[in-house]
């Protein structure tokens, strides 16, 4: 069913250019741009020699080994917020207007696998069923207190419903904020307003799992992290953090010591989970989220993303060019500022102390100073 829909929209896209149809970024291929490397880039992933960055106007650029960056042909122009290299062949990227794109040939060609219209058709019936069930429950219950609780819950669902209904008028507005695949068949995509999708068949069908995470107000889900034992963590707005140990079928809400938003998380070589976000807050947990320890990085800027280096150090990047380097064994934290001072949204290690960064000014590089000139945290 969804396959047919996808095929139709691909067809529409190829004819879109000829017919005087109104411009829709979902279906219009990404513009090839000489300054693609300088576009605002917000997604970055690495696998071996391959580096991929994604960003505004469907821009995806690739670097393999020592070759220079090349822009890939992407069949959409939405802001691609996240990119995930699963294996040699399988690459996923997700972005605004409910768009998910995939390559099965290592990045040479790309297909649109989901868009916001299809996402609406997934979420709307799902939410409708939820509401009907809840209404039935309210009708059944005799307990006045429970009825009131259920009424509240229904009201919240009503808000989410009206959010969906607006999209039927104006078009899909929901951005995916992260996409993460465990292997070529099982993967997750999270979005604004609490959307959590799962696929077990490589994106042919998607399950809506929004209600599996305790999120009554529909907070944004910003980041999904997995560890070596396939534990999953979802990080979101207002200190939201949830864990799953059964590949996303059930989720436990974790108690976090912070009620600001988390934007990113990494699992280091010791299996310790590090989460970070608004105003330079950093916490770590060595017991899979049962307890957290705060770390001070001497910055008030948002920390957006991070990576673990070969030698076990952790690098976090954030607004105004802030770069935080953590040595987890000694809990030594140094904070640096990239000369550009612009927001940095992604980081990966090139080799040694050489980092590749993406952010508002596109690609950038940074070398972690070997003499410790940064401010100690």
């Amino acid at each position: 069913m969804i396959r047919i829909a996808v095929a139709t929209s691909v067809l529409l896209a190829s004819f879109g250019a000829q017919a005087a149809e109104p411009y829709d970024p979902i279906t219009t291929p990404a513009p090839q741009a000489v300054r693609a490397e300088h576009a605002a880039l917000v997604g970055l992933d690495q696998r071996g020699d391959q580096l991929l960055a994604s960003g505004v106007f469907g821009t995806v650029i690739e670097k393999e080994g020592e070759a220079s960056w090349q822009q890939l042909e992407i069949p959409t122009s939405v802001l691609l917020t996240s990119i995930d290299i699963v294996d040699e062949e399988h690459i996923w990227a997700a972005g605004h207007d409910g768009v998910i794109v995939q390559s099965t040939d290592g990045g040479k060609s790309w297909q649109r696998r989901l868009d916001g219209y299809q996402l609406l058709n997934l979420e709307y019936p799902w939410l409708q069923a939820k509401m009907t069930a809840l209404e039935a429950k309210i009708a059944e219950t005799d307990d006045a207190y429970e009825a009131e609780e259920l009424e509240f819950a229904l009201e919240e669902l009503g808000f989410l419903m009206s959010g969906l209904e607006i999209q039927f008028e104006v078009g899909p507005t929901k951005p995916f904020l992260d996409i993460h695949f465990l292997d070529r068949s099982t993967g997750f995509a999270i979005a604004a307003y609490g959307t959590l999708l799962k696929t077990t068949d490589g994106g042919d069908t998607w399950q809506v799992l929004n209600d599996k995470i305790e999120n009554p107000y529909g907070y944004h889900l910003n980041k999904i992290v997995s560890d070596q034992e396939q534990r999953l963590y979802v990080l979101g707005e207002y200190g939201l953090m949830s864990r799953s140990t059964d590949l996303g079928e059930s989720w436990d809400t974790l108690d976090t010591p912070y009620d600001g938003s988390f934007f990113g998380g990494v699992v280091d070589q010791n299996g310790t989970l590090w989460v970070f976000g608004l105003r330079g807050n950093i916490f770590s947990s060595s017991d899979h989220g049962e307890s957290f320890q705060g770390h001070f990085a001497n910055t008030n800027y948002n920390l957006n993303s991070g990576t673990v280096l070969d030698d076990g150090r952790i690098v976090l990047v954030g607004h105004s060019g802030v770069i935080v380097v953590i040595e987890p064994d000694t809990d030594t934290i140094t904070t640096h500022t990239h000369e550009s001072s612009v927001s940095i949204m992604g980081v990966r290690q090139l080799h040694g102390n050489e980092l590749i960064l993406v952010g508002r000014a596109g690609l950038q590089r940074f070398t972690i100073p070997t003499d410790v000139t940064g401010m100690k945290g």
Partner: protein
Amino acid sequence: MQDNLSVAHAKVPLMERALFAARKLWLFIFIGITAFLLYQAAQVRPDASFTKMIPSNHEFVQNYFKYGDDLASLGNAVRVSVETTEGTIFDADYQETLRQITDELNYIPGVNRSGIRSVWTPNVRWSEVTEQGFVGGPVIPDTYDGSPASLENLRKNVLRSGEVGNLVANNFRSALIYVPLNEIDPETGEQLDYHQFSLNLEERIRAKYQSDKINIQIVGFAKVVGDLIDGALQVGIFFILAMLITFAMLYGYSRCVRSSLIVLLCSVIAVVWQLGIINLIGSGINPYSMLVPFLVFAIGVSHGVQVITAVMAYRVDGAEKLQASRLAFRSLYIAGLTALASDAIGFTTLMVIDIEVIKELAIAASIGVAVIVLTNLGLLPILTSYFGVSQGGIQHLEQARLKQDKVQKWFQHFTQPKWAKPAIAVAVVMAVIGVWQGQSLQIGDLDSGAPELRADSRYNLDNAFMVENYSSSTDIFVVMAETPPGECIAWENMVLMDRFQWHMENVPGVQTTRSITYVSKLGMAGINEGNLKWYSINRDNFVLNASISQAPSGLINRDCSMAPMIIYLNDHKADTLNRVVAEVRAFSAEFPSENLDFLLAAGNSGIEAATNIVIEEAQFKMLVWVYGVVIALCLLTFRSLRTVICIVLPLMFTTIMSQALMAWLDIGIKVATLPVIALGVGIGVDYGIYIYSKMREALAQNMSLSDSYGYALSKTGKAVGFTGLTLAIGVATWIFSPIKFQADMGLLLTFMFIWNMLGALILIPALAYVLKVGPKGKNKEPVM
């Protein structure tokens, strides 16, 4: 010859009788008109109206006019930078000065007070995202007291205000005050007086606050216009200089103070008349048409010289001063009228350039030339008939006649194969090099900053400072995204504008772009805790509205029917502008939309693109016209194709060489330099006409080519040489103008006048030889 001296000769032309029969009456009429027009001329206003300097009928400019009011708040501002020579701006004394200057600017008429921005105005705020949402405050809080602690706090606020590179220099050694202007005073309804405003900035800001520790830099359109008017007024002084040099030359030529003064007087009267008439027809004098008085003066002098030379010659021959004047008039008035008519027609070909200042220049020049007919062919012989010429002058001429003129003899060589062939060969080689060099000739202005002013002018130094220390370009190209009213921020329009911006950012030569879509995307990230994963145009109009709630004014117009797409360019070279125009059109073709039009073009670079297009089209048309007119006139006068070739080829040679010179000196074809080519050809043809008409007289008497040329040189050689030099000197003073385009005009005209003169004296005889002009078999032997 003796017969001709008789005044009562039967063949006395009507014109001569009409003029000399009532000498006194004419004199009084001339005095009366001069007095009246002097009064008028005194009221001529300098007119540097912006709209007259641009091609106002061009589509781009029409679009710009349509939204001129909406764009005004965006563009018409000056930026005053305050630089400290020691330390950084985080210094109590420095901040006090910055505060004082910010306050002072509030009181300068024309300033839009509510829009002033500096770190000292409350509208400049810092903000950041916290757990509680946005927090922020003015960059300078109420608690500021100049203490080290509050300066440190200021430093922090500046860093998080996002104003580094904008209101604060990247190196923290200067900060600026953004001063938007009201084109029309909201209280009095009066037009902003740019000259006065510029003077106020100089006196009340620069002169008052500049010191060892503080440097002031000021840039902005209003300042350019102010400096332009200032510079144009200085050019007035050059006129006096040109007069003095010309007088010295006249005296050197004639050795007669009396006739030198008469020529000078009549030429000045011609200028007075021209300016008076300009004022009478309700026109003003603009920085381009300021050239006209100089030209009128120089052309007047060159014709006056012809007249007094003739008067003196008849005096040497023994005629009385009245008789001599009448005979001089009789022998010159037809030739003079023809030459002046060709000048005037040459000038009118400038009308093909659809730019008001050039049309005004063409009209002013045509009026000026018409006036010369009256003053220097009419008034001048009347004056000589009263005052005559001095005995010294007559003696000088008598002695000169006895001597063989070496210069004349040297030029005469060019009728001989030994000289003619190499001369032609050299000219051909030079022309080939010239054409090759001319290939690199560019359309438009090539210099950075304000191209109207010199690169080392105060303004352009200030501008270079701004470009170096702040993150902004001064070459701004604006595309107007037009929608039905109320729909400028509809998603389907915004999303297309957004893609347009990215399209343009990828055009070589584009630095960056700004528009409401940029603000909306940043706003989206702002609403979502600064998360750049939201850096996109949202389909939900409520969210979209929220995202632009903090947008600065000017990014959409009042009824939301237009949003300017601001494109910052690296430079304003013609190639860059052409590329930008082409890419805007390409985008519109690729993404046609019913409700959204990307209209070209505003901003200084947008207007310049339009000007370049008009200039490029006019360039060829004008050359065709001016050469067409010149060729037609020569054909009419001489009725010989060979003659036309002899006269026109040297002109074309000059045109080629002047284009090569322009390419070599990096002077582009622009509003200022295009007319110069027409003026150069129009006036340059005079030399050829004078020389060839005398040659023809001799050739008609079956004299050899060499003798005929010798005859022509003896009759007009000196006058041609003198005319070339007077014209050159008249405009050469312009080379020192503080205004770049005036200097360019002066340089090119000087070059063309001298080159045309040499071309006529050398190439006409050489070409005549090559084309075998003259009686057969008589060309080999010079009979001298």
